């Protein structure tokens, strides 16, 4: 449960965690969204959050990403208290150092704007005012997510689901964020497309040294991507540790159920 123990096992570039979360609680009236969640996330680390539907993992992610305000707890990003930030600073963080990949690419993309415009938006949002350079960067990023350069002026509505998801990832990573939130990034994609997307994500995460918090109910996804894992049930973190350790030797009854429920092909 204590992130600091596991942190010793994770390669880190600095002495302080990138994100420190303590006692995060979000209530929906009398019902619990998530309760008393604490963890540290180190630079370059990928943290997976798994659990069944309604276990509070999406609530936790939206609290972390600033989409909802938690009722209690503290979130420190790089030593800064995120919850105490002004609206302007918080949104600047969301545009620059943070990125959020939605489950449904339609939530994260502008469907009426071309692929190049989608990728360029964050660049223009942080002050890019040179068309040629914005376009070059967008072309480069489309290449990195395996979208052909000649599709740069096509709208996302002309893209397949997998391409839309890859475009959303390019759009989010173009400004070189340090922390990426992902909500079921492979949800709704067929398995071969999922595999390619996971390959791509794994490559980008390693290459850019990203810290990632990834929420999913798919254990295969966290097995591939995550260094560390948190298992949630009824709003509480019931088990946490290194991914392989949790999946291969689950301690909590619920984790054992979860691991044994995966269909073997």
């Amino acid at each position, binding site marked *: 449960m204590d992130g600091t123990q596991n942190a010793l096992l994770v390669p880190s570039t600095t002495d302080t965690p990138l994100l420190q979360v303590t006692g995060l609680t979000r209530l929906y009236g009398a019902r619990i969204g998530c309760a008393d969640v604490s963890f540290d996330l180190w630079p370059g680390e990928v943290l997976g959050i798994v659990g069944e539907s309604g276990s509070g993992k999406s609530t936790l992610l939206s609290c972390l990403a600033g989409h909802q305000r938690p009722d209690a707890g503290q979130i420190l990003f790089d030593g800064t208290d995120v919850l105490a930030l002004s609206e302007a600073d918080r*949104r600047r963080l969301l545009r620059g150092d943070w990125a959020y990949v939605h489950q449904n690419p339609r939530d994260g993309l*502008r469907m009426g*704007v*071309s692929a190049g415009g989608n990728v360029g*938006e*964050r660049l223009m*949002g942080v002050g890019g*005012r*040179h*068309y040629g350079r914005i376009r070059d960067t967008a072309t480069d990023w489309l290449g990195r997510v395996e979208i052909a350069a000649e599709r740069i002026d096509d709208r996302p509505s002309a893209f397949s689901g997998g391409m839309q998801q890859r475009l959303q990832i390019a759009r989010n990573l173009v400004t070189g964020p340090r922390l990426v939130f992902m909500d079921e990034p492979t949800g709704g994609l067929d398995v071969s497309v999922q595999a390619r997307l996971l390959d791509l994500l794994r490559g980008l995460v390693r290459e850019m040294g990203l810290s990632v918090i990834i929420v999913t109910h798919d254990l295969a996804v966290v097995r591939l991507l995550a260094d560390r894992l948190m298992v949630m049930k009824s709003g509480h973190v019931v088990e946490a540790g290194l991914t392989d350790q949790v999946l291969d030797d689950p301690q909590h009854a619920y984790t054992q159920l979860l691991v044994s429920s995966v269909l073997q092909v």
Partner: protein
Amino acid sequence: MSDDAYNFAYLDEQTKRMIRRALLKALAIPGYQVPFASREMPMPYGWGTGGVQVTAACLTPDDVLKVIDQGADDTTNAVSIRRFFQRTAGVATTESTAEATVIQTRHRIPETPLTEGQILVYQVPIPEPLRFLEPRETETRKMHELEEYGLMHVKLYEDIARHGEIATAYAYPVKVEGRYVMDPSPIPKFDNPKLSDNPAIQLFGAGRESRIYALPPYTQVVSLDFEDHPFRASKADHACDLCGAAESYLDEVITDDAGSRMFVCSDTDFCTGRQAAGHRGRLSPLSKEIA
């Protein structure tokens, strides 16, 4: 009911007072959209209900009113609004830009330079420049508040990506005093440079959307662009066929079924003024006699 039954300039004094308060706030925060309690006017939305309310709030009995529609003094919209204020306010009217103290306009800034003491009232259909990119009003207000204007450049980016240049030809977005991004109403981008450093007071009224915004005299207004695709004020590459003016904004008029066309100044007052001063264009009725 006789025309005397109406209050001066149609609106009651409390309403004009409310509008004047919005105008003062708008002038104090150039480019900021001030909400106001827009009234039903005896004309359809889209005909300039916002402009008419602003004009009504500004008029005094001594004012001289000019109304133009696409630069012309003699189109239906201009004639109707001018007669409306003639009847309800009894003010003097004129077609001359120089003589007018209040000018209500739809889609143009007059060619004749404005002077201190004049008021230019624009009719605005959609005051929110970010509207077509971000449909949520709560979000656009937040974006204005936090100066998040990257999205505006996404629109210009799309223009260049699709057309090779910034194809937005009217309602071209501007930044006011380095702060608020503003929709200058659907004036051609040819007129954009005239917004900046203008000695006249410029007031913008959007009736259906219940918004007023303003540019005080000598306000700095910059048209948005990219470093490698700078803003260009464009017009048809011709001279006026009636008055020969090469520097005024032109309307293209199809003259027969064989594809013949002529270009004439969209500002009728400017054009007739030049003709009266003896300037002649390619198709002037008198040009043959003179030649």
